[in-house]
Each structure stands twice: as C-alpha cells, then as structure tokens.
C-alpha cells in the first residue's frame, strides 16, 4: 500500500478495551498463531492478528469498519492457542461491544447501555414506565380475585373496559411495546446503515454499481440469515464448540416464542372479534394447556432457559479455566434472557397455582425484562442479531461482483 497512514492512537479506546474484557490486548506480539488456527483467517488477511495490532495502536476507526470483527463467533481457538495470553477472542468481543455503542442511535442511550454503571437506569426506565401505566390504567393497584384470575389470567393486568374492538389490556401492551419495538427497529436500522457505510468506505475505490434493495435481500441478506439459522460457523468452532448446544436451542426458542406471540395476537385480538360468543370465550383468557401452541410455548420457554443456562455455564467455565474476563457486555445479555425466561415461566406457573399477587408481580417483572430486551437490543450484545447478520451480508457483498473487480480481483 503506497498511501501512508497517519497514525494517532486513541488512548481512551485502548482504556475502554481493557475495561471491557480486552485487558490482554497489549500482550500480543504478532506471532500469528491466532491467524493460523482461526477458521475465518484468509490469505493476505491475517485475522485476528492485524486486528490485534490495530487495537494495540488504538486505531478504532479501522476496527469498527472491519466486518471480520463481527464475523468472529468467539469460538475461542485463538485465545486457547495464544502463546502470550493475549486472548484475541476476548479482545474482539470488547471491540464488538465498542462498535455497538459507537453505531448506537441515539448515542446517549447507547452509552448508558455500554457499562454496568448504566444498569440501574436501564432497569429503572421500564419499571417506572410500566409501573406508572399499571397504576394509571388500573386506577391503583387492582389485584383480581382468585376466580377472576383463573378465568382471565393476565388479561386484565392493565384493567378492563367494554370497548369491543380493542381490550384495555391490549391497548396498553401495544402502547408500551409497539413504540419500543419500532424505536429499536429504527435504531437498529440506523446503526446497521452507519456500519454498512463505514465498511463500504473502508473497501476504498469507486463503485459504479450498487445492488438494488431486492438484490441486497436476495443475494446477501437472505443467505446470511439462512447461514445463521444453520449455525454453520459455530460448527467450525473448536474450543468453544459446546456453545452450539446452548445457542441453537436459544435461537429456536426465540423463534418458537415469536410464533406463539404472533398466534396469540391473531387469535385473541383479531380472530376472536369475528367469531361466535362461545369460541370467543375460549379464545380469550389464557391458552389452554392442551393447545399445541401452548405446548410449543412451554417447550420454547424451557428451551430458552436451558439454552441460556448452558451459555451461562460455558461462560463461567471459560472465566474459571481460560481466564476469560467477566464483562457487563456478556453477562447483561445472559442475565437478561434468563430473566425473561424465568419471569415468564414463573408467572405462568404461579398463575396455574392461583396466587394472583405473586403472579402479577412476576408478570410485571416479565414485562419489564421484555421491554429491556426490546429497547436495548441495538446497544447490548443482543445487537449482534442485527450487526452480525449485516456483517455476514456485507461479507457476501464484499466477495460479490459489485466489489471484487474494484479491489483487484481478490
């Protein structure tokens, strides 16, 4: 490369990496053992060796525009084989955490979600929001009687009115979660777009042809999603191979619960409006246990807890045995998902036992944790859902005819 790089290391970036799990970053002495063992490393692109020296030199702009950082699945081979204990896998994790914060929109929220210091506030926001709405909607802490609770479950959590077309509960649930979801989706899009632009920029050269939206989805995004679902890359991992055992059930559980939510919405809030009284009564209230969808929901919930439990155990073990650093970034997501699972399943069990007060409390926590999952998705480790998928799409783009001729056929 003939163009000389003017280097101005960012000391704060290095400090951040060291605090976010990359405390070993400076130990790397460029032996390239990591690149030899890494399944992602390619000829002329010694990954993650070059990322390690960029990180040592505080070159954050290069790192956040580097799709490879996001393609890494932290299989742990590099960390396990590093002769100097530089733990490249952990450093890359810290870089990803930094990237999510960096691309996060709006920045204030993203920064708040970047460290344990923001955690009280992260919890306080949904607690206050949902708590206030609960109090307002219910006219002040109304708890159902045991009989009423048995009939409608959490259907009257936010109270009840007689407007036929939209129940009060659904109104409030939607009032909370639809904006949160839309906000998260918008923020994710903004972040992903910013990342895509940075990455494109880092490729250099002028590109005459750009893919259309359809081409983008068909050629790049869709295959990336399929690959993700197949967990192909995870299967190439060596050291942390058993993470597949946790991650795959988790992903499938999320899909199952998504389906259940969709079913629930359709059946209760749409279909029930157009059927007879008797069926409507059946559709309203908790889905009966015998319903196969309910079965799927329960299996999904259990799979979720087991999946995240395995990841939890793996991480604890890695910290103990490999010296992996415990970080807010990693543990927030594990704790968060575990909270969603436990509160959800707990609320259901307590409901079946018929203790409204405790059930309501757990349900409240369930709503809080789900809200957190939604709203903070673009800024926490959960953001990998978006960024990694986009990076995988970008990888396909980079190898496609749209880019390759411009960078000399590589």
């Amino acid at each position, binding site marked *: 490369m003939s*163009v000389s*790089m003017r280097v*101005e290391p960012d000391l704060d970036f290095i400090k951040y990496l060291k605090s976010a799990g990359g405390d070993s970053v400076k130990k790397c002495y*460029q032996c390239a053992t990591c690149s030899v063992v890494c399944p992602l490393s390619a000829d002329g692109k010694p990954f993650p060796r070059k990322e390690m*020296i*960029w990180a*040592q*030199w505080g070159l954050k702009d290069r790192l956040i525009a580097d799709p490879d950082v996001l393609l890494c699945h932290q299989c742990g081979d590099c960390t396990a084989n590093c002769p*100097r204990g530089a733990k490249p896998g952990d450093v890359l994790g810290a870089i990803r955490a930094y990237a999510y914060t960096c691309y996060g929109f709006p920045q204030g929220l993203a920064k708040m979600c970047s460290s344990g210091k923001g955690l009280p506030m992260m919890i306080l926001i949904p607690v206050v929001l949902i708590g206030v709405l609960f109090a307002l909607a219910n006219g002040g802490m109304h708890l159902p009687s045991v009989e009423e609770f048995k009939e409608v479950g959490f259907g009257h959590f936010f109270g009840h009115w007689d407007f036929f077309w939209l129940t009060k509960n659904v109104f409030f649930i939607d009032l909370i979660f639809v904006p949160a979801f839309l906000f998260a989706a918008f923020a994710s899009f903004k972040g992903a777009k910013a990342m895509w632009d940075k990455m494109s920029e880092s490729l250099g050269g002028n590109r005459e042809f750009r893919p259309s939206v359809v081409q983008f989805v068909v050629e790049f995004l869709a295959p990336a999603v399929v690959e993700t679902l197949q967990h192909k890359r995870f299967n190439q991992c060596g050291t942390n191979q058993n993470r597949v055992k946790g991650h795959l059930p988790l992903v499938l559980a999320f899909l199952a619960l998504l389906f259940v939510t969709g079913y629930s919405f359709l059946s209760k809030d749409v279909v029930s409006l157009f059927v007879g009284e008797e069926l409507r009564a059946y559709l309203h209230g908790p889905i009966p246990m015998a319903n196969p969808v309910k079965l799927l929901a329960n299996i999904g919930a259990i799979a979720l807890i087991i999946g995240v439990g395995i990841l939890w155990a793996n991480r604890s073990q890695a910290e103990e045995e490999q010296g992996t650093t415990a970080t807010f970034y990693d543990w927030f997501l594990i704790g968060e998902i575990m909270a969603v699972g436990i509160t959800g399943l707990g609320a259901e069990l307590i409901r079946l036992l018929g203790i409204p007060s405790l059930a309501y409390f757990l349900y409240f926590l369930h709503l809080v944790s789900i809200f957190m999952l939604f709203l903070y998705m673009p800024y926490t480790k959960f953001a990998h859902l978006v960024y990694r998928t986009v990076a995988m799409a970008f990888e396909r783009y980079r190898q496609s005819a749209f880019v390759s001729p411009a960078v000399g056929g590589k």
Partner: protein
Amino acid sequence: MEKKYCAYICTGCGIGEAVDIAALSGVVSGEMKMECKTHAVLCGEVGKGFIQADIDAGVNTVVIGACSPRVMQDVFDFGADKITIRANLREQVAWSRPEDAKPDYTQELASDYMRMACTQAKKTELPEAYQLESVNKRVLVMGGGIAGLTAAREAAKAGYQVTLVEKAEALGGKALGWRKQFPSKAPWTDLEECSIDEMVKAVTSEGNVTVKTATEVARVAGAPGNFEVTFKAAGTKSEWDAPAKVGADEQDKITKGEMPDPNVGLKIYTEKNADAEKFGSVVLATGWTPADVSEYTHLSPASQNVVTNAQFEKLAKAGKVPAKVAFIQSPGGSENDRDFPYCNSVTSMVALKQAQYVRADNAEGKAYILYQHMRTPGQMELFYKSAQNNDGIFLTKATVTGVEEQGDGSLVVTAKDTLLNEDLTLAVDMVVLAAGLVPTTKDQPTVNLAYRQGPGFLDLDLFDGYADSHFICFPYETRRTGVYTCGGVRKAMTMEETVDDATGAALKAIQCIESADRGVSVHPRSGDNSFPEFFFQRCTQCKRCTEECPFGALDDDEKGTPLPNPTRCRRCGTCMGACPERIINFKNYNIDMIGSMIKAIDVPDDDEDKLRFAVLVCENDAYPAIDMAAMRRKGISNLVRFVPVRCLGSVNMVWIKDALSSGLDGVMLLGCRYGDDYQCHFVKGSEIANKRMDNIGETLKSLGLEPERVKVNQVAITDFDKVPQLVQDFVDEIVALGPNPFKGF
C-alpha cells in the same frame, strides 16, 4: 637430573590385537636402547603399581605406550619431579586402523610412535618455574563506573589491595546521569531507582580500596606481578605518557625528517620510573562513550528535537519529557535493517525504559518504538512485556524512511514495512535515536602500556574497536597478560551484565597474580611452569620474536635484543617458531626435541608404497579432533605420523627442513581457524604459521622440491568427521607427486 628410563607398553583397549607387542618392545629395547615392559591394563591399580615399583627403584623418566596423552593424565602422574612421556598407541594406532590395514603398516606406525616417544624422553628436561624477585599483589582498576566499582569491590572482598582510578571528579561513571535503571529482580517489570550511590559508598567504605579521582594512568610498564604504573592528573600531559609504537619504517622516515616523531618529549618505553606504583594486575573498565549519529541525515539529526538516547536520559533526569516521542532503534533508510552501530541489546532496553518516562510525565503520553530488532535477553523479556502492556507505548518493527522537521519544531516520522502492514506517518514532539555505546578502546590506546608492540590492544579493527577477548574460548583474556577488561570496553552491556562481567574480571586478575607468584602460566596453558629461554650470545637482533609474540611479552633494548618478561608469557612457543637462529627453547619443548622426534621416524627408502608423512598438530583443537575421529573408529591413513605441538605458531621452519631432508614425503600442519573469527588459543599462532609456510614454498622450489609437499590446514575441534579425509586427500596428492627425491640420501 640424571635420567633413568623405562618404557611400558599397554596391551589393553585393542592395542594387543592391533600390533605384535613383542616386536614393538623389541624396537624399544633394541633400537632405542630403553628397557621395555608390557602390561595388560597399565591404567589399573595393578598396572600403575607395576610402574610405581620401578619408580621407587630409581626410574624417573617413563615412556608409556598406551592411550592418548589427553586421557588418564591423573593416573600417569608420578609427581612433579618425574617425567612422563606418552605414545598414543590406542587412538592413533589401534583405533584408527583403516578397514583394509595391512599388519606390517600398523606395526611400523606403532614402532614410529614408540621411537618418537623415546626420543622425546631423552631430549626433554624438567622445567623449573620462573620466579620474580618479588610479586606485588595489588590490583589496579581503571575506570570508576559500574564495572570498575564492581571489580574493585570484588577484588577487595577477596582480600586484595585495590587502587581505583577515575578520570572524573567523582566515582559513578555514566550511571550518575540516569533517572531510573532497569529492573534487577523479580518480577522484572518495573524500573528501579538508581543504585549507583550505594555502589560508590560500598567501594569508598571498603578498607582495601584506594580511590584516585581526577586521575589518569599515564603508563603501565612491567609485567604481571610487577606492573609499574605512573599516574597523572586527568587531562594533563606527562613525560611518562605511554609512547606510540614506532616501527622500523616509521623510524626511517623520522630519521629522514619525513614525519614528526610522535614520541617527542616522552620517556622511552623501557625507561623505569622510580616513582611508579607497583601492581600485580590490571582491570580495564573504562567503559564507553555515546555514539555519534550525525551521519544519518535522513533522520534530521541536526533538528533541535531530534536527540540521542543519551541526551534524552539527561532531559528526563532534569525534568519533564514531551508527550509524543518516537524512539528510532535502527537508522532504516533504504539499504538495510541494521541497528545503529554499537547497540547490542542495550539500546532496545533503553528505549523501553525511556518510553516509560514519556508515560510517567504525561497523562496523554504516547511513545512509539520503531525497531528492526527488539532484543531483551534473559529476564528482560519480562521487562519488555510490562512495557508493551503500557497503554501508551506503541511498538512496531519498521524501516524508518525519514524524519522531517515542521515549522513549529514538531517532527513527522515516516516508516515502511511495519507490522501494521501499512506505511506509517507519525506526528511527534521529539525523536530519540538509539545511539550505541562506543568502547573507549576504539580510538584511544586507553590501557596505555609501555610495551614494545605499542600502548594499546592489537587488531582492534577486527572487533569494531572492542577490546578483543575471544568470547567463547577465554572470555576475559586480552592479548596483554595481566590486563583484564570488563564492561563497556568489551561489549555494549546492561548494568546487570556489567556486574557479572566485572566480577569475573576481578577474579581473573587475582588468578593472574597468583599464577605469577607461582611462576606458572595463565590460560590457556594454566599451570605450565616452563618458559622460553634465550641463548643471547647467538641473537642476531632480527626482532622476529619481539614482533610476532601475540602477547607482547618481549620488549627489547636499543640494539633490538629481546628483553623477556616471563610473567607476560603464555608459553605458546611462537617466539621459538619465529627464531631463525633457533636460540629460543623451553626445557620440555624445544627445537631439538621435536626435530629429533621427526627424524626418529623410520623412512623405508626401498618401498615405493610406504611413503611417510609428518603431520604437526595443534594440541588444542586439531589433536583432540583426531582422537575423537579414532574413538569413532574412523580409519586414518597409516602412512602419517602425528606430532603434537603447543601451537602452530611454535613450528620452526627447521622442522620442515628436517622432515624433508630425512626423506619424509610430505608435511602437513593442522591448526586452528584464524581471522576475525579465529579459534587459535594463542590468537595469532595459526595465522603466523600460515605465513611462514607461504615463505617456505620458495625455499622448497629452490631445492627442487614441490611446494605442495608442505601444507597448512585449518581444523576446528568439531571437525573430527572431516579430519581423516583431509589427511587422506593430502596423502593422495603426494602419492600422485611421487616419493621425496631426497629419500635415501
């Protein structure tokens, strides 16, 4: 000593199977007229008792035909007043028989070795150690830096009186200017406060040490055990300053008025100063000076903010250093990846140290270290790791292409071939160049000897000006016996290394004093009590011995007659090899002895197949190599007879003439490698031998002999696998030439 001889032949270890022992002992008792006994295991208790019984009965000179003289030396030691001569029948006869060896050839080989041993026994005498009238046991240490302080303290602690001379007003040397020093103990990660003050205090409070500051050594005359040292005030001139060497050519020019006499106003080197102080040995620890890096113009060395590491250390000691600093370890440029000269590993660690000053003095400090080689030996790897772990220290291998000064005095450094796989541009406040540590011996004699061969060490250009010591074979020796170097004059080294080095030098200095006291040699012939004796009546003042002595042991008077200094002598015999008059001899190693041994080789003059070769073998490396070849049962031509010599430098031309005139068909010399990676234990011996043999070629031609009949080869001790072939090639070459035409005359 009235000699009473007896010869013994051992039949063990395969000797009995290889040769006809009865016939062999017949040669000894008949031809050599020496009583000869045989025994199955001479080295066993019974065998030794067998010899001891004869010694008790009055035998005082024994010839032992058994294993190599390199082994069983303690077994066949019958006391200092007895002579033991060994014939190597095991390694060089029994164990080195070629596969197709004919018995008569082997028998003749063994017979020749017994003839040579018997001849040697007859010609050798018991040496008597040379004793100085009085031996002074004080140690002079020149230089009061870390090396000198350590050497002085160690020698004093061992009970010797020490005088420590320092040119500056205060002791301490370069370390006085340091802000921090390298870690010296576990965990080897953090810089330490300088300990030089304690080191100085330890020396000044040591009762055995006399300190002379602001003082220099004008000249060191004399020899180990009796050095006569003249001091002077630092920076002044004295009539006792050591005179420069004026060779014959220069003297000629001076006489003709073509050049000025460099020694005007100086006492000649042989003149004795009655006021001189006496010392037993000298430790030279005069250290180093920072290298000049102004030649690297692409690094803008003239810019105000481009400094050397030595200057940067001063800035750091005085106050705060700038926040953005680039440390350039190698000049880079386009040509090569070499470091600045005289760096060794020291400047790598200095950069790691100074980078920490940048970090300590500035919250946002950034130190870039651009290196071609990062050398952090031993525990210093941990120091390197800890520096690397510092957030603001950035390391990369790089070829620096330039340093440019900006309008505001800041600098822009450009570099290529970096670990970042991209060319770099760095904007910095200051650039530090890793200037090396130039030994004080590079441009000055420094040790200031009043010796015939000049005031300084010799051939320093081979070693970039470092005081030569031959690191592998004899780390502390110099070519001036009794002068031991340590610290920066020997190599760019860290404080830790210097302390070790100076301790070693102090012990060598003590060892030398004690050897001089006992009248024996220092390394490599440690304990040898022989010394060269001169028959001055026949000296022609040719000055060859005084010129060629590798250790400058010989001074001379105005006429050129050598003035020997036996305590400077290492007993290599180079003077003996040089002398055309053959008047220099050792009691137990002399012209007559080796010459007679060569002539004792039986040369059949009626057999075209039985050619005879003498191979004069350096006993330090080549002889063991031949023994090792034999231990591996590598066949060696049985036409050659090996004659061990102390050093090829001791080989006198007359031995070659003796060999050829007595009908031997060829002579080969096997010695050590010479040149800048020399392995000669006496530094110059093999090189000198090679030159002499170049000259003998002409002589041979004039006699009608082919110059190919004499050959010199260089052999390392590890060349045991090559030696047999080397010998065979020589034999084959001469066989092709045909027998020596002088045979039978």
